């Protein structure tokens, strides 16, 4: 109760002052626009409307990004050192610098994106045909409600390793030992499997998201089209291949590009489960380690810029696709 009373000024400010400022801004700029001759008004007015957004984007996105670029050319004390930070990250191919992290990001990019799309699509199409659809979909969607850190901790338990002579506490090794009678595997420290183990955990967490969006797109396909195809004698597989899938394509692409960006910025699962040890490092985790553990802002910024450059083509593709979908409407 005390807290509530203390916070009353804040509440008043948020509820009253913020809308008031917005209203004053709108009325005020409109007043200024009205002062101009009729012809000029349509040209000036949009700038007043996008103005605040531009200011915020500049202050919180553009300037920090430029700052990162500048930092990536500096050493710890802010002296200009040219491309040395990039050279350190990109030198010593294939195991030095950031190369292990880059390789793993490529694994993430391909496996994570494809499997999530594949599972999402299959689940959306199959569940569309059963009566208990909403219940099953809620279950598949449920991992989305778990924070990635909790997800990683849970999967960390599932992958946990005990020596062969001790009782296995991890789900997977329990199965390996008791069902398949094999020696327990070190899922998280064996470089031949650990990246896939991490990616599998992340796939489990995000499949529900892809399924829900793809399912919505599926529901948007008019029934008449499918009926017409059936009348023409098309089998269900042909209908999926020739009618449903092409119509869902724009959504698949949007979900796919979103997943690509998720894959490139993968961090939490890796950080919690292996902290990037045992050759599971990814760029985002490397950036974090360089900045906070190694006190190397230049190197961290260089990694950030490498990551940014990797994301840009995807972003452009995503925007184009988005525009193409808009244009079709």
């Amino acid at each position: 109760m005390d807290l509530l009373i203390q916070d009353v000024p804040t509440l008043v400010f948020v509820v009253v002052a913020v809308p008031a400022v917005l209203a004053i801004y709108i009325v005020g700029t409109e007043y200024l626009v009205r002062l101009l001759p009729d012809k000029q008004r349509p040209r000036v007015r949009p700038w007043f409307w996008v103005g605040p957004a531009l200011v915020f984007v500049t202050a919180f996105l553009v300037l920090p990004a430029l700052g990162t670029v500048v930092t990536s050319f500096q050493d710890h004390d802010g002296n200009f050192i040219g491309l040395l930070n990039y050279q350190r990250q990109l030198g010593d191919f294939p195991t030095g610098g950031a190369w292990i992290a880059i390789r793993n990001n490529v694994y993430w990019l391909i496996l994570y994106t494809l499997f999530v799309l594949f599972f999402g699509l299959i689940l959306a199409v199959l569940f569309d045909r059963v009566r208990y659809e909403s219940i099953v979909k809620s279950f598949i969607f449920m991992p989305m409600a778990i924070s990635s850190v909790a997800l990683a901790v849970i999967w960390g338990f599932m992958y946990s390793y005990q020596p062969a002579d001790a009782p296995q506490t991890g789900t997977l090794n329990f199965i390996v030992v008791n069902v398949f009678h094999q020696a327990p595997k070190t899922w998280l420290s064996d470089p031949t499997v650990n990246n896939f183990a991490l990616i599998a955990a992340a796939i489990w967490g995000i499949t529900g998201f892809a399924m829900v969006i793809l399912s919505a797109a599926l529901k948007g396909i008019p029934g008449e089209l499918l009926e017409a195809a059936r009348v023409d004698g098309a089998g269900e597989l042909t209908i999926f291949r020739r009618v449903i899938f092409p119509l869902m394509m724009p959504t698949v692409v949007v979900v796919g590009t979103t997943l690509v960006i998720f894959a490139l910025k993968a961090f939490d699962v890796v950080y919690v489960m292996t902290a990037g040890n045992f050759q599971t490092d990814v760029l985002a985790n490397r950036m974090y380690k360089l900045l906070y553990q190694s006190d190397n802002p230049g190197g961290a910024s260089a990694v950030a810029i490498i990551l940014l450059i990797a994301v840009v083509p995807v972003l452009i593709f995503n925007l184009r696709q988005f525009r193409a979908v808009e244009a079709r409407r």
Partner: protein
Amino acid sequence: MRLIRFTRIPVIAAVAALVAGACAPGASNPNPTGAVHGGSVSVIGVWSGGELDSFNAVIAPFTQQTGITVNFEASRDQDAILTTRVAAGNPPDLAAAPSPTLLTRFANQRKLVPLDNIVDMNKMKQDYAKTWIDQGTVNGHLVQIFSWASIKGFIWYNPKVWTAKGYTPPKTWGDLINLQTKMKSNGDTPWCVTVNSGAATGWPGSDIQKEIALGQVGPAVYDKWWQGKQKWTSPEIKGAWQSFGQLLGANDANVYGGANYIVNTDFGKVGDPMFQNPPKCMMLNQASFITSFFPKSAVAGQDYDYFTMPSQNSANEGDRVGAADAWSMFHDTPQARALLNYLLTPEAQEVWVKRGGKIAVNNKVPVNDYPDSVSQKIAKDLVNNTKVLKYDAGDLMPSDMKNAYWQAIVAFIQDQSKLDSILANLDKVQSSAYTS
């Protein structure tokens, strides 16, 4: 539990030989909590769970006396939180770090408040061994104070099992190696080692390696090594890695579970196999704090005891590696001053000492404050048998070097045959880590 009575001798929580010779007596003893009343002080630390309960117990009488609330924020990822908040100009009033690496970095950036005029230096010189004051001094100013320490180089074993099997604590390195061989021929696994610790994975193994290094090459080379003036590939440092490998055995065969178990298992669980019946390993090397991670049912002195790691060079016998909780001040407020001065007092430090798992740095904390025979033995060991106390070399190295060191330990445990390339890589990191 058997309680051994000791006379109330002062415990010097560091090197007896290094204690400041001249103490200036006669300084007035100000009320340690100062004159302030009320308000609050913000602290960032790493303690959680049982350790946080102990810290809260330390703070309780302080809050009761002064009315000052301590807002404690805990994170194992302290480097990230502190770096961000300091860079943003929003640091806490005080920080308690498990190693001085980060705080020393802030001291060099002049982000810390010098404590020379904030703590009572005369009192501190009486109560603290000189080594702790030197350790907290950066660029001529005291910027860190230490509250509780842990001493490394302790090898823990189960006395009941050892008596039954006829093993006795070794006195020399050769005895230790012979004991290993004897255990193996009896079908026992000599060691338990676990090094997983999230982003800090590798440090428990690095402790063993640096204890060996100190005992093998002595304090002078040890100092040159953490200062970056001694190559990792030099015979002295490489020798310590090889000795570490000698303990692990070929393919880590001397360690329970082998490399897979070592790198996958959390450091806190290191003792679990040793306390199983029958025990899965005979001994483990970890600092004094590890007793708080042992099973609750294990009784000090009966189920576990320790001997100190023998040095390979008898000239270095009694040289120990240690680490301590370091405190620094970012904001000079009356409340922060009061808390810092309180933490320096034996009254504050003995609260945690009595709860177990910590050794007081203030030498006025009496031996019989320690809760059991083993922790009393540690406290006495420090006074009587510790010749040189060296701070953890890894914690004194720049962060880049320290992280590479930890990762090298993991790589070495996974494949000892790669030692030369591992050390060459460390040399490479060394050449750039010390320049910035």
